[in-house]
């Protein structure tokens, strides 16, 4: 065991820090640190800056255009990016369809799509959930009917994050209705500009609209857009969800919330003193700080297991649950730090470029919206109830 960063790792950290400091556009950083809704352009711009440095796909092996970093290096990279206020690298291309194509795609599919993911020439979204298929994903009903060299896809997807910007959607569809539901699902790629695709934004509690419904009405896609074998989509779906779970340990968001909380608690006052000196409030901050510390070390242990090639099991579910709980607790306390100023809320102030007025500044304006929005993290990516079922099953072996 070596529980400290090696000199090489420390050097690596410095290199990342300097690059991000020098290259992250200030306007993007300010919006990120104010928890605003970023524009498509902001995401793409930062992604291309990273791609220009060869860091566009930190998790990818060198043969596919990644930097070939170790798991520890990747976590250092994420850490530095988050600290500096960089936008998150969207997972849909890099952590979802990318790894899927590497494992299940044909050589043609890999050559066609992977390089465009690194520069974000294609924006990807995820077509999994449906109105009737949430936790019970295998109940999905969107149908793909074979017609010569094409599939004709009809149905509806929902909770499709950032689909309003997407060029492509990877999508689970039903290609066979007989037999077990899991055995009739295929994994296909849909061009979002194809006739019959319609995107409807869903307004969420923070009054943003980053999730959508996607309606598919006789959308024709070439058979070449099938990934893996026909009816073999469930295996791919599960592989991908495994990837999503480590992503949503949410460590970066936890750290960002924690940093904001400290800053607000220093700036806000109670009985004429900084809020952070209020023992009642400070105790709750410390409890969360300790929670976060243990979460970080759990993640590091898991990363080192992964790096050593050991199988990762239910620990990913545990990380997902703890990460979501800590984010939500931090969001709650952040809101409380605002006192009565949690009440006024100008929704437009969450948009990039907003120049209007708020009651008490941009930061306090958004705390309640952030608190509301963070309720989603215990719902998406497999609800916490589903994660607990997975853990209990593994512990009990029943």
């Amino acid at each position: 065991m070596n529980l400290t960063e090696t000199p090489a790792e420390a050097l690596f950290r410095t290199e990342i820090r300097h690059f991000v400091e020098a290259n992250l556009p200030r306007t993007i950083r300010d919006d990120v640190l104010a928890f605003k809704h970023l524009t498509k352009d902001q995401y793409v711009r930062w992604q291309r800056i990273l791609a220009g440095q060869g860091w566009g796909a930190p998790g990818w092996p060198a043969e596919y255009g990644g930097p070939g970093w170790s798991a520890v290096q990747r976590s250092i990279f994420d850490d530095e990016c988050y600290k500096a206020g960089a936008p998150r690298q969207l997972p849909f291309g890099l952590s979802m369809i990318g790894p899927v194509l590497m494992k299940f795609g044909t050589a043609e599919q890999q050559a066609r799509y992977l390089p465009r993911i690194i520069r974000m020439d294609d924006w990807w979204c995820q077509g999994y959930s449906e109105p009737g298929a949430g936790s019970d994903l295998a109940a999905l009903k969107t149908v793909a009917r074979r017609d010569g060299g094409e599939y004709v896809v009809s149905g509806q997807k929902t909770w499709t994050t950032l689909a309003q910007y997407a060029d492509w959607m990877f999508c689970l569809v039903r290609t066979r209705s007989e037999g077990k539901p899991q055995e009739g699902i295929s994994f296909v790629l849909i061009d979002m500009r194809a006739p019959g695709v319609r995107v409807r934004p869903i307004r969420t509690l923070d009054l943003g609209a980053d999730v959508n419904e996607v309606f598919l009405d006789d959308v024709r896609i070439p058979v070449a857009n099938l990934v893996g074998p026909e009816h073999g989509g469930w295996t791919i779906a599960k592989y991908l969800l495994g990837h999503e779970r480590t992503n949503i340990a949410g460590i970066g968001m936890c750290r960002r919330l924690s940093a904001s909380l400290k800053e607000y608690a220093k700036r806000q006052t109670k009985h004429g003193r900084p809020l952070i000196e209020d023992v009642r409030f400070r105790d709750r901050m410390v409890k969360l700080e300790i929670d976060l510390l243990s979460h970080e070390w759990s993640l590091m242990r898991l990363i080192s297991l992964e790096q050593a090639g050991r199988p990762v099991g239910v620990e990913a579910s545990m990380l997902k649950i703890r990460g979501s709980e800590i984010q939500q607790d931090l969001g709650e306390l952040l809101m409380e730090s605002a006192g009565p100023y949690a009440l006024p809320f100008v929704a437009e102030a969450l948009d990039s470029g907003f120049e209007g007025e708020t009651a008490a500044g941009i930061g306090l304006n958004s705390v309640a919206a952030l608190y509301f929005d963070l309720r989603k993290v215990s719902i998406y990516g497999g609800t916490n109830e589903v994660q607990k079922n997975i853990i209990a099953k593994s512990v009990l072996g029943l």
Partner: protein
Amino acid sequence: MDFEINDEQRLLADSVGRWLDADYRFEDFRRFAADASVARQNWACLAELGLLGVNIPEKDGGLGGGAIETLLIMQQFGRALVVDPYVSNAVIAVALVAAEPAGERRSRLLEQIGAGSCRVSIAALEPDGRFDLSLVRTVAKAEGGAFSLSGRKAVVIHGDTADQLIVSARTAGGAGETHGISLFLVDAHSPGIEIRGFPTIDGQRAAEVHFKEVRVDQGALLGGLHGGAEPLEWAVDRGIAALCAEACGAMEKLLELTAEHLRTRKQFGQPIGKFQALQHRVADMAIAVEQTRSMAVLAAAKIDVADRAERRRAISAAKAMAGRCGRLVAQQAVQLHGGMGMTDEIQVGYYFKRLTAIDVTWGNVEHHVELYGDLL
């Protein structure tokens, strides 16, 4: 002890419920919040039904009701997500005005508030004071027979649609002291008042109010000079009791909505309410609603006791409980609705937001735990 309400009270609750069912529908919520003319109509209805005068004595033209009537009305309001400034007017302002000595001003004000022709907002909090009613830096300087008000008031609920403001200002002492706070009734359109209104998380409004040497005469004083802290605390306590009842109504509704969802939403071939993990959540929600209901009744029972400490403990306990339970019920309701609970398209989120807003109105859980602790 008798927890049964009488026939008259039941009639009141039923008639409020019927009006809300018919004319205050969720489908219209966004209009209520956004359209000032609709809000005025609703306000006129509240006046017509006599609800604005529920706490006004009969001899002054009101219904002559009290804590129980307010509780019943607020529970219905909580269920229907009423967004009008009812508590500020019909509870807090009426309490302060009704406590004034009999006279032309008192009669006129009560009549106007009851008729809905004068809307009052309570400008008591300040930008750096959190929920502390005695952290008053706004000053009222005596100038001859008049006063000059200068300072800033924070998060004044519906302050940008008010005709009159009840303002706490310092006539003696320093920030944090209770002695030396005086209350003034100020025309919201007086020269020197700058009001910046903002939407709130729950579809209402709140304003930042800046007083720049606003001149008011001696007659603007509500209550005695330097002695405003105690009546303000007492009147706000009445508002808090009302909010606890409202929270109870909102939580009841959330429990019903969630139960309905669990009965009808199917996953894995069965209603999700069949899963024990979710059943226990619903049980926790039901317990929380029940506790809040009890505390809302306690608050109503103690609001008129003479002993300040006894009243204050009950009110802070009730508000802390309503805040804690409201958070639990709302969070569980969202979680159990899954992704739909995160949208602006169904009712659940609106109740979640209202309960969150109630928690940060006149003191959140932490504030009331602290106040209770001071009285142990």
